[in-house]
């Protein structure tokens, strides 16, 4: 019989053990593909085409989460592999005792790993592809997109990325498993089952010290993001340190916990020596001790999940609000230089142009206002702190006459402004928190401009953040409002025409849209139209999509975390069946045993959740600072949503695990 045959037979024979391994791998592949395909789905829908800085923030978060995702999946698979190898060690030991060469045993193990790896890669990819179809469909529905536009969503990049990534993981597993077989002493392999790992609890002093270090790491990490007030900029390099500290702190916390816990409880004889408490504490500490890596992972995944779920909804709502802000009127026509044709813009009379194509304004608009912006070749340098470096970001600025500015304000129902002698006003409807900070810093420096031989100064008292036109993405220009006479003779930069519709509004909308299709200009000019309806539906769809991605990601992490716990608990239960048999033999009744199982499950599921909640709350504070203030009301709402999801998914897994454990006990008796 060849090694390959033997490997195949082994996989079949150990199907029950391999099921858990296989599911974990498949799940990992599926998640990884789907997650990477989400980005391409986003691209297909054109949402990220509007490359506002809002989305830069968003993709920064995605990038941070991606670090977690790849780390989590790699370790998840290592965990499943370890679980499998641990169950198989004895078998390999027996092969060796029977005189099989180490090379042959290695080959068998390699065969098994490759077989299961390939199978799960294929299954996972198939699942991932179909999952992203369903996702795309639901998204399209929510965003009221025509289904025709949503073709088969398949991302070749995601496929390649997944295959390469998992290929590397499998290779690592191969090396890991081969080394395991060739380096292990025979005695260790054979005694693998009887010689548990639980006894390796470090001494009390060591445990306590490590526990303190763990708490220290977490305290420092929390302080790094919480202390310093909202004004402090949190850049990615700081966050990287925080994440590292949180990960290390959490890992140490669970590593030291079992030793700490057991020593602590052993001193409380009255508790320790009551009923099955001794047994429960020993079981838990052995489990936490052997599974501290996976419990750490579970905790981090839970934190990410809770954070993503509650943040996702809040952020998406606040983004919807911000985007909705870009619609102070029912519609805005814009005419500006066509970038392809160079800067030669000669100005367009939009009112006349519309009349030419058969749309006199009075037939659609109750109110209208045409405004011209002027070009004075002004750019404003803003200094952004990104990745720990100052980066210069040049913003174009156009001039607007004070009277025009006041006319627009009047149309919006806002109070008029006056300009003191020698001053100009800056209007910049920036929404991105970093840009807003940079702008404020710029304004605070009392910048000056020279126009027609006059020097004008701006300052915080003449800084406005009005959204003054209907625009889908938030690429608002910076506007400098100057006394009317100073723009005399300057070339036009762009023309805008604001409209408020006549009723019925949908008829007006249809007419305006028709007119846009008919409008023709020469090649130097680019015309565009944005209506409130378009902006609001775009805001809706963006918010839906963000919420969707957040919920999807959060759910995936939550399910992965709960699944790892369930696998751990159930496999531990099957390892412990002999112990429960012994307990029953010495006269423990079902009720006592059930209570012992419940106590273990509760602790096992509860501890990581508690720490994860702490991480998540701190994470939310950070996120709020990164993204600027978002709607506080929605935070409460999404918090409640998160609690509900947690209760259903996590609670469901907990109950299923508890019931499954009890069923296992009943079956053996």
């Amino acid at each position: 019989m060849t090694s390959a045959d033997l490997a195949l037979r082994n996989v079949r024979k150990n199907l029950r053990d391999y099921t858990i391994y296989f599911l974990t791998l498949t799940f990992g592949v599926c998640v990884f593909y789907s997650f990477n395909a989400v980005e391409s789905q986003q691209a297909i829908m054109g949402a990220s085409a509007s490359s506002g800085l809002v989305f830069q923030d968003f993709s920064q978060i995605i990038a941070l989460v991606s670090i977690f995702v790849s780390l989590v999946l790699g370790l998840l698979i290592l965990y499943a592999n370890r679980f499998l190898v641990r169950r198989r060690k004895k078998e390999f030991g027996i092969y060796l005792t029977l005189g099989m060469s180490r090379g042959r045993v290695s080959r068998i193990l390699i065969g098994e790993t490759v077989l299961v790896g390939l199978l799960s890669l294929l299954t996972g990819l198939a699942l991932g592809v179909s999952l992203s179809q369903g996702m795309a469909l639901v998204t399209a529905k929510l965003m009221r997109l025509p289904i025709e536009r949503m073709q088969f969503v398949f991302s070749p990049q995601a496929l390649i990325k997944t295959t390469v990534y998992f290929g590397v993981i499998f290779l690592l597993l191969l090396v890991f498993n081969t080394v395991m077989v060739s380096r292990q002493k025979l005695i260790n392999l054979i005694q693998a089952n009887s010689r548990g790992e639980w006894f390796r609890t470090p001494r009390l002093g060591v445990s306590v010290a490590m526990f303190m270090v763990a708490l220290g790491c977490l305290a420092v990490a929390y302080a790094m993001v919480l202390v310093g007030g909202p004004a402090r900029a949190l850049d990615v390099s700081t966050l990287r340190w925080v994440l590292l500290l949180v990960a290390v702190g959490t890992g140490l916390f669970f590593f030291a916990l079992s030793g700490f816990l057991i020593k602590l409880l052993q001193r409380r004889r009255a508790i320790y020596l009551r009923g099955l408490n001794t047994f429960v504490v020993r079981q838990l500490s052995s489990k936490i001790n052997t599974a501290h890596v996976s419990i750490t992972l579970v905790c981090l995944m839970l934190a990410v999940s809770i954070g993503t779920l509650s943040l996702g909804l809040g952020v998406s709502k606040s983004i919807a609000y911000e985007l909705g802000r870009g619609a102070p009127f029912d519609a805005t026509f814009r005419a500006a230089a066509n970038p392809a044709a160079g800067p030669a813009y000669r100005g367009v009379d939009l009112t006349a142009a519309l009349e030419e194509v058969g749309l006199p304004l009075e037939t659609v608009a109750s109110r209208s206002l045409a405004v011209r912006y002027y070009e004075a070749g002004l750019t404003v340098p803003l200094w952004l702190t990104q990745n720990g470096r100052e980066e210069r970001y040049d913003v174009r600025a156009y001039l607007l006459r004070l009277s025009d500015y006041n006319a627009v304000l009047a149309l919006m129902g806002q109070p008029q402004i006056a300009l003191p002698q020698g001053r100009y006003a800056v209007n910049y409807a920036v929404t991105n928190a970093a840009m807003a900070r940079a702008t404020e810093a710029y304004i605070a420096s009392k910048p000056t401009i020279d126009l027609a031989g006059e020097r004008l100064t701006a300052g915080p008292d003449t800084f406005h953040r009005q959204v003054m036109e209907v625009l889908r993405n938030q690429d608002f220009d910076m506007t400098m409002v100057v006394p009317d006479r100073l723009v005399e003779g300057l070339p036009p930069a762009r023309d805008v025409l604001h409209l408020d519709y006549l009723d019925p509004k949908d008829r007006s909308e249809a007419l305006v849209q028709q007119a846009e299709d008919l409008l023709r200009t020469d090649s130097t000019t680019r015309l565009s139209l944005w209506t409130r309806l378009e902006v609001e539906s775009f805001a809706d769809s963006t918010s839906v999509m963000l919420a969707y991605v957040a919920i999807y990601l959060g759910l995936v992490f939550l399910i992965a975390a709960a699944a790892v716990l369930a696998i751990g608990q159930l496999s531990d239960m099957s390892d412990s069946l002999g112990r429960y048999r012994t307990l029953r033999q010495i006269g423990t009744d079902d009720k006592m045993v059930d209570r012992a199982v419940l106590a273990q499950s509760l602790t096992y599921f509860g501890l990581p959740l508690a720490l994860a909640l702490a991480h998540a709350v701190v994470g939310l504070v950070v996120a709020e600072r990164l993204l600027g203030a978002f709607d506080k009301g929605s935070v409460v709402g999404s918090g409640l949503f998160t609690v509900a999801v947690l209760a259903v998914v996590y609670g469901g897994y907990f109950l299923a695990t508890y019931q499954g454990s009890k069923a296992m006990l009943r079956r053996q008796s």
Partner: protein
Amino acid sequence: MVVITQPVAENGTPPTILETRDVVKIYGGGQNPTRALNGIGFTVAAGEFVGVMGASGSGKTTLLNCVSTIDTVTSGHILIDGQDITQLRQKDLARFRRQSLGFVFQDFNLLDTLTGRENIALALTILRRPPREVDRRVEAVAAVLGIEPVLDKFPYQMSGGQRQRVASARAIVTEPALVLADEPTGALDSKAAKDLLESFRLLVRQRSATILMVTHDAFAASHCDRILFIRDGQLFYQLVRGDQSRKVFFDQIMRVVGAMGGDPDDVG
């Protein structure tokens, strides 16, 4: 087949604590059933130290499992203290086991996650004994069995004999009315075996416990008051020590063991 007259409780003799009546245990029905117990019947009086001997596979462990209510009989009855345990409900069985029985298993059955001390203590903590009493009793029984040095070790860190003694300590620490021991001396050297047997004897004398002990070892068996010989799941013969010296009893046991392969009538 020899008909064995059961000892009848007369005035002044201790009451019967254990009685088995026509106990049959069949493993795995279907094609190939094993009749591990084939209508075995005997009684044990309170305060007796009874040995059970028989070839490997003769049904000794099965008998103990049935008496200890760990396993259920196929037919027949087992009475402990006059109570038919084959009729007990699950919950009462568990209570009965932790209150009235001590069991030393052939394969020790120590909890590998617990230290020796914790293993022994567990038998008391599930009886909800106060912690101080638990600590005191564990120390006391450990002293009797000479396992103080291994109390804080885990089972995998102990030798086979030490494990055996820890298991025995767990069985007797609750001072149960009936101790069932499946080859408790199997892994012990002669000194350790003698110590364990003497602590069993002490238990019988001082706490008026009753012990039913399976053994292959005639020397261990010679410490008993009476020996039940089992063959093919049936009672084959029994020996009562009476007032004989242990040496004489030992020789008698050896003779029965020697004759076990053949006919019981060979036994002089």
